[in-house]
């Protein structure tokens, strides 16, 4: 593989007028659909698939990459300004991004999200180029037990960090995992927990759960509070300077959070099938654990925006890398990319990098280019976009709620998904008001299928001692034990120290 000539060829291809123009058009389309809560760049890629037969891959692949790379950036605008995840990986950004917006700092919040997203998007591409030759040994080291333990660790990290009660966080994860069990089991096709209901055979739809648990309760609370998203008389959030200040803050004040989120997101991204939906929550949980003010997380902490956005921004190029190099989808939407490769006559896998090195680089570079174009559009359009926060909650309630119901329906076109969003919203409202953890439910639900697949395989292959099957497994198991015991041990230590001090005081 001749890296430098291939890289130069990729750059030359990318700046051909026709390629640059289609990347620009795809970026604008992706930003618009990214801002809309019901649809994402992934849907656009699926819509394009029928038109890809026989198309020139050097022209088509950059379009698909631009659609995928920028949609999340548009989604972060929606998440920060309206509290509704524009796309599934934006769910974690909602927690602190929207809380900061409600404090009247919409511009700063938007700047933090966009600045982080752009930096990480570009960093992901820059990391991917030299990482290609190093990929094989990393992925070969992660076998089934390691993948299972990574998922367990992610669930535990998030659950044990639930404010107020770790037990509630773990119960929430249990609810999410149980919801994931409903329907046909992926491995065997056997139906479970359907109770004879035909609708449940296909399981519960992810979009419905995301909308019901996260988005609808937010809107209901807004309507109940009766105030606009940002409080009246709050700071002038609509100014470009506010957005710019937020973006600069990423590197000036939160560079360590950004760096950790980017590295974590990248590692999760290159692991097969995990993708940015997982990466953002792991980064969020890690940021909360490492934060000097963990109680501020969820209340508009900048760290709570930087960490998940850095993971989201970087994950997509790492996902693409795994898909390109190994022919294994780095995330669920990368399955569509695999189909696109076949339609344009390209066989993904190690041979792709050897035979079509320039194309592999062109795809990665088109992601960076699309991200930079989107950055310019977003930063200059931001003062207009933040005006949405001044809108009365009645308008948001009236127009966004039907859109959410529609979003739940269009994914599978099942009428029962309309009822399902009502029921999941009721559950979401209950868990939100009673101090349970919505992110833990979502993570449990999203990872449930993988969790089960890896668990069954690990038990079948290695028996019940699978967690001791390799040095990496042992390290991951140790981390799991530490994250479970850390809180109780710390509480015990504080109690013992308190009683010792009381005894000394008494003496």
């Amino acid at each position, binding site marked *: 593989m001749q890296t430098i000539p291939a890289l130069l060829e990729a750059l030359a291809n990318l700046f051909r007028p026709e390629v640059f123009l289609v990347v620009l058009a795809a970026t604008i389309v992706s930003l618009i659909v990214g801002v809309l809560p019901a649809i994402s760049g992934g849907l656009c890629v699926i819509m394009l698939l029928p038109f890809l037969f026989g198309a020139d891959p050097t022209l088509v692949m950059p379009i698909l990459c631009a659609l995928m790379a920028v949609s999340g950036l548009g989604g972060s605008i929606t998440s920060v300004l309206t509290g509704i995840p524009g796309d599934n990986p934006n769910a974690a950004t909602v927690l602190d991004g929207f809380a900061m917006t409600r404090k009247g700092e919409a511009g700063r919040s938007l700047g933090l999200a966009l600045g982080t997203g752009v930096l990480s998007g570009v960093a992901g591409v820059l990391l991917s180029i030299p990482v290609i030759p190093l990929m094989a040994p990393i992925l070969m080291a992660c076998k089934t037990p390691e993948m299972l333990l990574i998922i367990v660790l992610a669930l535990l990290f998030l659950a044990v960090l639930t404010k107020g009660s770790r037990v509630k966080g773990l*119960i929430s994860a*249990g609810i999410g995992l149980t919801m994931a069990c409903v329907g046909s089991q992926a491995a065997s096709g056997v139906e479970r927990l359907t109770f004879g209901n035909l609708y449940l055979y296909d399981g519960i739809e992810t979009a419905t759960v995301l909308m019901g648990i996260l988005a609808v309760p937010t*809107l*209901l609370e807004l309507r109940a509070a009766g105030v606009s998203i940002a409080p009246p008389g709050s700071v002038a959030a609509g100014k470009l300077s506010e957005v710019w200040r937020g973006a600069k803050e990423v590197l000036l004040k939160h560079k360590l959070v950004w760096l950790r989120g980017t590295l974590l997101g990248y590692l999760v991204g290159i692991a097969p099938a995990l993708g940015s939906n997982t990466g953002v929550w792991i980064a969020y949980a890690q940021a909360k654990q490492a934060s000097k003010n963990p109680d501020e997380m969820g209340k508009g902490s900048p760290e709570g925006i930087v960490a998940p956005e850095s993971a989201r921004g970087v994950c997509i190029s790492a996902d693409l890398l795994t898909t390109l190099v190994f022919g294994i989808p780095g995330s669920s939407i990368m399955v569509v990319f695999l189909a696109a490769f076949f339609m344009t006559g390209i066989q993904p896998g190690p041979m792709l990098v050897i035979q079509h090195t320039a194309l592999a680089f062109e795809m990665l570079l088109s992601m960076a280019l699309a991200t930079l174009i989107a950055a310019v559009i977003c930063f200059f359009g931001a003062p207009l976009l933040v005006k949405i926060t001044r809108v009365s909650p009645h308008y948001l309630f009236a127009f966004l709620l*039907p859109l959410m*119901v529609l979003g739940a329906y*269009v994914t599978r076109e099942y009428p029962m998904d309309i009822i399902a969003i009502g029921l999941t919203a009721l559950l979401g*409202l209950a868990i939100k008001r009673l101090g*349970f953890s919505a992110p833990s439910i979502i993570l449990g639900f999203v990872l449930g299928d993988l969790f089960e697949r890896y668990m069954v395989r690990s038990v079948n292959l290695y028996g019940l001692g699978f967690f001791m099957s390799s040095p990496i497994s042992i390290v991951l198991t140790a981390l799991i034990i530490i994250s479970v015991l850390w809180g109780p041990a710390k509480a015990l230590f504080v109690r013992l120290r308190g009683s010792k001090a009381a005894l000394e005081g008494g003496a």
Partner: protein
Amino acid sequence: MKKISPTACFLVIVLIVMTVVFVTSLGYRELNVKLMPLIVSGFTIVLSAFALVQDLRTGSEHTKATDEEGEEIEEDDGVTLRGLFRAFVWFAALVAAVYVFGFAVAMPAWIAFYLWKSGHRWWTSIILGITPLIIVYLIFTVLFEIKLYPGIVFAWLSH
């Protein structure tokens, strides 16, 4: 008599549901099929029972603030339970209307009625109700070729 907290009620529901999941899973023949639901529901049952006992012991100790009408106010955002209930009723009405009458009828009707009840003029409400439907129709039906759900009433009439 000690008042049972909403958290305790929720935990009781979780316990019942998880017990049903556990018992149902025991009935599956293959170990691979029942392994995950058994482990997850068993684990959640134990944790829920623990949380329930903890809540019953300490749940009634803290008192909550009330507004001028004596309504309970949640700590952070000033949302009253009555306000939340009203908002949920609007949402439930939308879900039911869409399911019965489909998007084409329920969506503009619900938006128009909601805006009218929120103080808008009737003709503004109707215009604002119809506009999103036109946009949704153009995006989903024309561009993405997704057929909007017609509702059980119109589906039944068309048969």
